[in-house]
């Protein structure tokens, strides 16, 4: 099937993105969620003021870090969620729809991250 050929070519690449995203999510997400999702809102630690946050984000390395932080885990989700829907819900006939939704979502999220971090200059 013509639709199979590009997917056969892309699968190793998608898996690599998934793995890279998995590593980034495993290493970085816990501390981010703990600080911004739990510790700061509950007042356990002094949170990041607007001024300080802007000062930090001005640094290009911080913006690159945030871009990687937002983009790769999204591709991790896309790949994993695609297989979860495929296997778990047994909706194979929607295979193409699932792929477009998942990887499309990740691409949109990546584009958004790039745009936001570029514009914040």
């Amino acid at each position: 099937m013509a639709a199979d050929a590009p997917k056969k070519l892309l699968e190793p690449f998608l898996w690599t993105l998934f793995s890279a995203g998995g590593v980034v999510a495993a290493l970085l997400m816990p501390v981010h969620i703990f600080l911004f999702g739990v510790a700061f809102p509950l007042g356990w630690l002094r949170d990041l003021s607007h001024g300080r946050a802007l000062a930090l984000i001005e640094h290009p390395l911080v913006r690159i870090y945030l871009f990687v932080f937002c983009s790769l885990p999204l591709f991790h989700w896309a790949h994993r969620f695609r297989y979860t829907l495929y296997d778990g819900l047994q909706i194979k006939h929607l295979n193409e729809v699932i792929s477009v939704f998942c990887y499309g979502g990740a691409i949109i999220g990546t584009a958004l991250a790039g745009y936001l971090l570029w514009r914040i200059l």
Partner: protein
Amino acid sequence: MTPHETKGAVQYTPYHPRWYRMRVSTYWWLWKWDYLKFVLRELSSIFVAYFVVITLLQIHSLSRGPEAYARFEERTRNPLMIALNAISLLFVLFHTITWFNLAPRAIVARVGGKRVPDIMIAGSNYVAWLVISAAVAWFILR
């Protein structure tokens, strides 16, 4: 007579017994505790994506000025948000732990002909995680 294999399709003969095929239920993942753990691990990716969205919203509010940022921070203080984030943290930690514990199976490292033991590969991942988390926390909090 036994079923004869021709080009991947089984040819039925007059004496072929009717096989019984059990249909796999949509709830197969509830059959075993290990299956359930697997599905929970896979679902952790949803919480990963969720927090990326939160981070994007945070960056967006940052660019719109102090009032927008303050409103964002106010929303994170909502008890429902805190609860959701706490659950996300648990799921992401589950992802981290299962990821590091499985890493040694995919990575075969050899030093001087002998295979590096699994616990060293997993262990070095955990150490890297602690060091990087501490560095990020210090950078944000200092």
